[in-house]
């Protein structure tokens, strides 16, 4: 049986690891390579590394740093930040990335996403969906002043046959007050592609709630691992109690 995945997320701002709240007020949380080493020794299911300011600052991801992070990992790693060409992806795959996570470029260039999928295969192309509440609906958070509705964006990406969605609730980011389960269910109802639910995990109850009330098979988290004593293993032990398949 496929196991649920608990995925630590490292967010990088060009200088160091940071953790944001609602996508702002970044707080420094340490060194990426050391963090990767710790997560590898804990046998985590997978790791995500995102340069959250590359696109905004119009620069490429630091390949040397990413290579050093990946060197520590004997599990799958997804890398995102400023990806806008086939070469960008090739460069990341060459140093051992398993998946790339694309956000900004996906908002403006569907043809490029289709091209990526046909060249690298679906399984390699993950799409980041940063959703922000807008009344009863959600829109896609972006810094390009684009008005994008959640459902429309998912429909577009479904048509591109991407491999995965990393769904982050901007409203819950870093708040550690629980996941936006409604958001995850709305995404899940619109797609047959795997989803990683992100944003809001602060204690064990939050994870139980997410997995009991949605069909997601993966969760990504950062704050809980930076700011509490909980480890990915603790979450798995808890999920095992509610009969979710976990890899211990």
């Amino acid at each position: 049986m496929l196991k649920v995945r608990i995925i630590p997320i490292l967010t990088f701002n060009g200088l160091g690891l940071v953790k944001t709240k609602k996508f702002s007020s970044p707080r420094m949380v340490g060194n990426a390579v050391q963090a990767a080493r710790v997560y590898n020794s804990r046998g985590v299911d997978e790791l995500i590394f995102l340069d959250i300011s590359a696109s905004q600052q119009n620069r490429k991801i630091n390949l040397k740093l990413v290579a050093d992070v990946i060197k520590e990992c004997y599990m799958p790693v997804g890398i995102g930040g400023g990806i806008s060409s086939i070469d960008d992806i090739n460069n990341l795959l060459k140093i051992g990335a398993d998946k790339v996570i694309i956000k900004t470029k996906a908002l403006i260039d569907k043809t490029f996403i289709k091209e990526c999928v046909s060249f690298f295969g679906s399984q390699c192309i993950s799409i980041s969906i940063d959703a922000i509440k807008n009344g009863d609906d959600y829109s896609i958070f972006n810094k390009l002043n684009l008005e994008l509705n959640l459902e429309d964006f998912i429909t577009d990406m479904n048509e591109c046959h991407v491999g995965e969605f990393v769904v982050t609730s901007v409203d819950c980011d870093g708040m550690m007050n629980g996941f936006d389960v409604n958001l995850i269910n709305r995404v899940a109802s619109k797609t047959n592609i795997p989803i990683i639910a992100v944003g809001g995990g602060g204690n064990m109850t939050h994870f139980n709630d997410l997995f009991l009330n949605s069909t997601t098979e993966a969760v990504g988290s950062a704050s809980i691992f930076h700011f509490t004593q909980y480890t990915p293993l603790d979450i798995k032990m808890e999920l095992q109690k509610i009969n979710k398949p976990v890899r211990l």
Partner: protein
Amino acid sequence: MIAIVDYGMGNVASVQKALNFLNLQSIITNDHKLIAESNYIVLPGVGSFKQGMANLKEQKLDELLTKLVINEKKNFLGICLGMQLIAEFGNEPEKCDGLGWIKGEVKKMESNLLRIPQMGWNDIDIKNETYFNGILSRDFYFIHSYHFDVANKNDVSSYVNYGDKLVSSIQRENIFATQFHPEKSQESGLQLLRNYFLNAKS
């Protein structure tokens, strides 16, 4: 020496990193002579079947590998796309020929109930223990939207359950191949690679 075939389909660095960890000497190459001189050939790869075959053909690696693996019986390890390419046919994105070493066809996974690709850790049902000795956990990392429908069940060394019983590894004579990624499957994956390179004999 282990030759990791570089045919522009990603993922070669991870494989070499795992081999380095096991103190196994390897080289990432597309050089025909180096591949021919090696004791083991590893064909990794992610991406689409048709693109993979096109890249092999462009460098005439398809002919070379077939000569070395089928005629000269050199040890071969295929991983993910590297397992799928040894089929007779693929379908990604449309029907095309594979290397044709193992009878069967690589098909798109279809399910109304399950999410595709299969992405994550799943436990396998081992049919041929040869290289799986001493493995602590049967969970391996999968990431695929296509599966190899193997014609001769004797060629299957393990299955994985994802909606259907899918082939997760193949073994026949000097050919061993896995749909999952041993180089990404932590302890179990490293143990499998250790077993393979200790026990596979030309």
